[in-house]
């Protein structure tokens, strides 16, 4: 081999060339890996937060963790606790931790109606404390479509039953409607006939009646006028004389009634005392 190297000019500096080639290849591979890692933010510093869920249903490793719709991390690990609950550890890029605060909470929800499940972190308030590594945050599971449908189903089924009953009643009512309509038609025809008759009667008799009434009212007004004149002048005098006459008559009657032998036949008015019977058991008590 050494003889060949020494004899062929193409082999001159071959070791250096191969070493350079391998070095470039290795450098390319490293740069590619570094580029991919950079793109996947493998080299970004991370903060780990966790929450405890009743169940790990719909939560998977690598599931996206978002804040205001922006990807800020992923689900790193799921583990079962001693209390048979699920501890979900989130890996969140440190640069986004300025929006994740102590009053932030995590929610499991679905992106769109048929989208993937994600963990949504709500932005915390600026005044709330910053979160350290391996801190627990609150978690809430949003109602899924299935749950919503189940609830709606529970409410809609009785509604449908009610609608069915209403429809049945309406059907029963409508069944009798033609007969009612016929009766109404008959009533309306009868009413129309009555009104026609009334119109005929009023057209012929009412004017005459009104004329007679006018005359009667006029006559009554005159009579009242005359009566007013009479009462204004004579009635007070008549009343006074009548009273005097009555008083006089009363005096005479009183005198006569106190005179013998008439007084003996007229019983004088006197106060009565209500008797209390000796035998009336319980009769003196209030009647119930």
């Amino acid at each position, binding site marked *: 081999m050494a003889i060949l190297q020494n004899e062929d000019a193409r082999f001159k500096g071959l070791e250096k060339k191969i070493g350079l080639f391998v070095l470039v290849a290795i450098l390319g591979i490293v740069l590619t890996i570094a580029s991919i890692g950079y793109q996947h933010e493998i080299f970004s510093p991370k903060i780990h937060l966790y929450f405890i869920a009743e169940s790990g249903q719909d939560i998977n490793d690598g599931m996206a963790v978002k804040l205001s719709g922006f990807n800020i991390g992923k689900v790193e690990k799921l583990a079962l606790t001693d209390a048979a609950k699920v501890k979900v550890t989130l890996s969140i890029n440190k640069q986004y931790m300025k929006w994740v605060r102590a009053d932030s909470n995590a929610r499991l929800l679905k992106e769109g109606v048929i989208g993937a499940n994600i963990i949504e972190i709500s932005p915390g308030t600026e005044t709330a404390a910053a979160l350290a590594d391996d801190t627990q945050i609150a978690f809430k599971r949003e109602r899924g479509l299935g749950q919503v449908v189940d609830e709606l189903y529970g409410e809609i089924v009785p509604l449908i039953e009610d609608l069915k009953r209403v429809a049945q009643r309406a059907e029963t009512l409508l069944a009798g409607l033609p007969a009612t309509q016929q009766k109404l038609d008959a009533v309306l025809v009868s009413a129309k006939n009555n009104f026609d008759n009334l119109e005929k009667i009023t057209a012929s008799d009412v004017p005459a009646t009104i004329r007679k009434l006018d005359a009667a009212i006029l006559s009554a007004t005159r009579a009242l006028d005359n009566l007013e004149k009479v009462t204004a002048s004579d009635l007070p005098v008549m009343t006074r004389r009548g009273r005097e006459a009555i008083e006089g008559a009363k005096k005479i009657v*009183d*005198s006569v*009634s*106190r*005179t*013998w032998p008439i*007084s003996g036949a007229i019983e*004088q*008015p*006197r*106060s*009565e*005392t*209500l*008797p*209390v*019977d*000796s*035998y*009336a*058991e*319980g*009769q*003196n*008590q*209030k*009647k119930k």
Partner: protein
Amino acid sequence: MNRWMLTWAAITAALTLAGCVSSAPRLTVQQEAAIQYNQRGEAAFRQGDFALARDEFQKSLSIHRSVENQEGVAGELMNLSLVYRRLGNSSDAHGALDQILSGPGLAFDDKQSAEAAYRKASYYLDDADDAQARVWAGRALDFCRGCPAEGRIYNLQARMALSARPAESMQLARRALALNRSAGNKIEEANSHRLIADAAFQTGDYASAQAAYDAALQLDKKTGAAEKIALDLMGLGRVLARQGKRKEAMDYFQRAYFVSEGAGDTRAMDEAAAEIKKLTP
């Protein structure tokens, strides 16, 4: 001559008649008003409007007091007492009578005090307070001393003794009967007969009981007291039923039922119906 004699005879007769003419005492305006209120109160009482009766009697009482009419005041206090009783106000009922018996102001005579004490005894008896009833009946007799209420007081005492001491009740009722008959008080005379009958029934002397109930019935028919007639008929029915005369007894109970029905006394109707049911096989 004859003409002159006739003239003198006519003048003499006219003067004689004029001498005979006398005027009955004229009522004062206050007396007339008080009597009117009293009569209105009595009418309201008979119609069962006890509140109105109370108001009318109070107006009458005020007038009597304004002229110190002792008799009128006593009468209206007794009326008010009965009205309060019907209104269910027993304390005011006794209070009105106490004004006659021990109240300040006007001094009432023994006759009025006897009547007031008799009424108190009657109220206590109706309230089943036998001890107080006996006390007040005794005081009524003490006040009375031959007053018109004496027969009623003995009747009341006979009623008090009836259930426990029928023999004593019989004696008291007989004394009451004599007094009431003498006073011409038909209602109380009938009560005396009925009490004698009740006492005889208690002692098993059915013949005397039947005769006494019958006497009471005759008197009650004269006074038109439907309630008492029904009581007499019920008594006769019970006497006959006790002697085993079911058919005759049934007739009396049915008569009692019809009398009570006519008077609208449902309680008495129920009692008669219960007796009829007992006799129905």
